[in-house]
């Protein structure tokens, strides 16, 4: 999945963490926001099952982040959102742009509300995700380095 994004920070500080948060949130929201009604339940499951454990949601930096999701192979799911982090929490999510028209699509607002409600799209750690090859170690390490401040 290719993702493009830009970040606007109220405090003018463009920090790597902000990018990661924005990208992660947008990726999740982007998937959910842009699907047809018939596929929404499947997509909900997919969202719930995405292990976004790279981002420490307890360390969100306040600011307004804009993120975009390219929308997959045919750009069917292209969309752009604005996420406001306030007091360390996701306070508001707005859909800025979507490539799909309203016919046959689902309003993403309830999905956004769920993100705001639960603040818990991530898990802290995954049981049973055994990695037994040294080849994977580098990838794991890189992921965690990004998440660390």
């Amino acid at each position, binding site marked *: 999945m290719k993702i493009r994004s830009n970040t606007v920070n109220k405090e003018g500080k463009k920090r790597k963490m902000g990018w990661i948060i924005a990208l992660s949130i947008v990726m999740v929201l982007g998937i959910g926001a842009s699907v047809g009604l018939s596929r929404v339940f499947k997509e909900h499951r997919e969202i719930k099952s995405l292990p976004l454990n790279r981002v420490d949601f307890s360390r969100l930096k306040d600011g307004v982040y804009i993120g975009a999701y390219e929308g997959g192979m045919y750009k069917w799911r292209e969309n752009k959102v604005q996420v406001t982090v306030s007091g360390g929490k996701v306070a508001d999510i707005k859909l800025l742009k979507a490539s799909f028209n309203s016919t046959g699509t689902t309003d993403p607002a309830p999905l956004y509300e769920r993100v705001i409600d639960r603040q818990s799209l991530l898990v802290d*750690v*995954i049981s049973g995700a055994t*990695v037994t090859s040294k080849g994977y170690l580098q990838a794991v390490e890189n992921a965690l380095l990004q998440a660390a401040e």
Partner: protein
Amino acid sequence: MSTQAIRRSVRYGMSTVITHGVYGTGAEQALAAAEKETDRLERLLSRFLPGSDVWRINQNAGREPVSVESETMEILKKAVWLAELSRGAFDITIAPLSDIWRAAGQDKAVPDGAAIRRALSFVDYSNLKLDQHAMTAFLPRAGQAVDLGGIAKGVAAGRVLDVFRAYGVASAYTDFGGNVATLGTKPGGAPWTVGIRHPRCEGSIIGTLSVADRSVVTSGDYQRCFLTPAGQRYHHILDVKTGYPTDNGLISVTVISACPLTADALSTALFAAGLEKGARLLKKIPEAHAVFIDTRLNVFISQGLIGNFQSAGQPVKILSF
């Protein structure tokens, strides 16, 4: 919302990736000490490291009792207790059989029946003689061998949390290749959210558990398995009755326990026992809970997990027995 930072460390050890996450001051020292402790345990318990207690027991099988450290004795005793409880579904003397299957995995070819039967004849945890006064361990027949692979990560996870506590850490997790243990809650009192790996979709989870001061260990048929050219899957949890990988309809079992060693051993035992026998076995350890997943991706939870386990979409059934 806490402003504390989490310190993470990732390294390779005990044949897997070990990750720790520690909140609070003193995290750096605690992580360094945890690393040393893990290395020490591996030197004590690995059957592949010459000079380890387990290596010496195996080298002297059929010859003479071997002096072991008191903590090795404690671990062996607990392993035998769990073997008895599970009627051998979990058996630490399974090494001769697992060796054959490990080699088979490299060749992607099923071992022949005669070799399996020969290996099976060496497997019997009740043969292991533990003398607590002389502090010795002994296997009576040459060719027998102890393998603590089914509990060593649990043991290490427990010890790492002990180290964290000794350094004044109140909030941490440790993850030995998917073998998770948590210390306390997250700062601020929220429980840890532990995902259970989806047994058929790598990179996804099938649900989450909220835990504090608990270990969460999953045994799955997707771990250390191989496919034959015909597409048949052979996984690493072996049935000591048949000598073949268990084939009872379960593909993943997760155990939640206050004791990381118990969680580790019990996840293997419940997997090997199957859903019904496993659920009955689980009842013998009231503080432990479990999530079973079958080949149809039905999820079964023990009653203690009602309201705790959050499914990522699969239907959930509650075990009534």
